[in-house]
């Protein structure tokens, strides 16, 4: 089993919902972005500026795992690469070694609060208890492995059942993000990769990323217009998934 993601750039509306969902899911400090949008400035005069969503590629041969001197960056059997913030020494070699620049060093000055100069909101305070980001260590996307593990424990299928699927995939209103098992040839991600000729970023590095992209020019994909019934306020649905977790943590008080 190897979890992977396919990002369909034709369907992606660049709405930033995935970024917002991640911030909500992990209570990210303001200076930290796990998924990001890369601004694409075309060389053609007058052509529209566009953006490309990127996140940790969860590489099969991840340079960050190899270079970490404290073995704080680890790779699970399901292919997810994560940082153990209780071990990380903050040397930042992983940030340098990542050819995709998808890691962030979380320093105190990147945590000014959502409203700098004011007291932290109740949301932020609650977030610090659920996800206590450790200043002085490195952070990155972990494919919402907590959601995946909790979902699998309940017998759910990541990529199909919302509760077991990464938050960014859940909220994507255009259904541009697809999540699933790359090792399963019958999974939706495997089919998309094969049918749409999906590609990885910089395969020449030999890192074998688990995040694939579909691009109209390369994959000859059909129309990207999502069915109207799928264009729901899915981010609100996602917010409701946090309720049970919050109850577990705060319910005892």
């Amino acid at each position: 089993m190897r979890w992977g993601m396919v990002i369909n750039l034709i369907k992606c509306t660049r709405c930033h919902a995935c970024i917002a969902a991640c911030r909500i899911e992990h209570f990210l400090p303001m200076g930290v972005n796990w998924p990001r949008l890369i601004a694409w400035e075309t060389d053609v005069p007058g052509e529209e500026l566009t953006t490309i969503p990127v996140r940790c590629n969860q590489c099969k041969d991840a340079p960050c795992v190899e270079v970490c001197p404290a073995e704080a960056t680890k790779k699970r059997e399901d292919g997810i690469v994560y940082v153990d913030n209780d071990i990380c020494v903050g040397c930042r070699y992983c940030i340098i070694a990542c050819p995709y620049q998808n890691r962030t060093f979380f320093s105190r000055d990147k945590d000014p609060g959502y409203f700098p100069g004011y007291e932290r909101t109740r949301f932020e305070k609650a977030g610090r208890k659920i996800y206590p980001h450790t200043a002085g260590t490195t952070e990155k996307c972990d494919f919402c492995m907590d959601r995946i593990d909790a979902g699998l424990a309940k017998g759910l299928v990541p990529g199909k059942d919302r509760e077991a699927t990464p938050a960014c995939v859940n909220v994507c209103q255009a259904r541009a993000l697809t999540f699933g098992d790359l090792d399963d040839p019958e999974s939706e991600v495997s089919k998309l990769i094969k049918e749409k000729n999906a590609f990885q970023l910089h395969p020449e590095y030999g890192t074998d990323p688990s995040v694939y992209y579909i691009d109209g020019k390369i994959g000859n994909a059909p129309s990207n217009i999502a069915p109207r019934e799928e264009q729901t306020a899915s981010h609100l649905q996602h917010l409701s998934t946090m309720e049970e977790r919050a109850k577990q943590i705060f319910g005892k008080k």
Partner: protein
Amino acid sequence: MSQMATRQWMVTHEWMVKPMHQREWIERRGIMIWIAETFTSLGAGLYLVSLFINSWWGLLVGWLIIMFLKLPLHIAYFGKPWRFYRTMPPFSNAWKTSWFARGILFSVFFGTFGFVQLVFGQPDLANLVGNSVANPIYYTFGVLAGLSAVGVGIYGGFIMNYVKGIPFWNQGLLPVVFILAGVADGFGLAMGVGLAGGDASIAWAEAGSRYLLLINILLIVTYLISARYTSAVAKLSIQELLTGPSAFMFWGGLITLGLVIPAAISLATLVSGGEASTVLLIIAIVAHTLGAFALKYCILKVGIYRPLLPKVAAY
């Protein structure tokens, strides 16, 4: 906080379609990495040179530079300095894959072996325990400390050479540049040790420095030429060095101070047949040392990543 300053935290996109500089190891706190890397070269180089010319004072100064300047700076740079022990066995076996972890082990070995060598090389203590006991220990640990010093001097090159995203660093020659530049700087500092009244032979150090400077000039030129043809981003790095924002440091610091001035003084001494004056020697030593800082600055500063997206993969 002003509205503008607040707004900067709201930015969720970056301009990574263009080649981007690495910043973690040269800007803000990253300056510590630059200085620590320079002390690595100076300390390891001086230790190796002192082994070669058998100078106890040189060994001591080299050991002190590594243990009290390089290591504390490296550890202070960590986000969690007090966790540094986690980079070493038995807490971590990362040395099997990580040059960073190997470097830390080399430093620990160097500190230990070097200390024993220094203790048994100290004339008073050697007389106390007897030369028949002190000498074998001194030389055995000298070999071990020397090997560790080579590791300390070269691992920074392997750390950077491993980074596939930065083509200017991703060159096989980089570790060689690091270790040979360190030895050249070591010869420079050995002259300083001799000048300060230590047991280092100034004539030997000057002769060694002469050869190493020549080798380093050829090595740097070779490095730039070979990197030039690896990718467009490496070419961009070289352009920044030669004519861009880092040109002052390259031409003024590395070439003029680090190579030309010491080489000119050395050549003048060779031609005149005598020994260089104290003033000229001091100028050469200072220039050498500043050149060492400039070399590491230039390499770290022009570390530019290939763009992330395939559209500009030609870089």
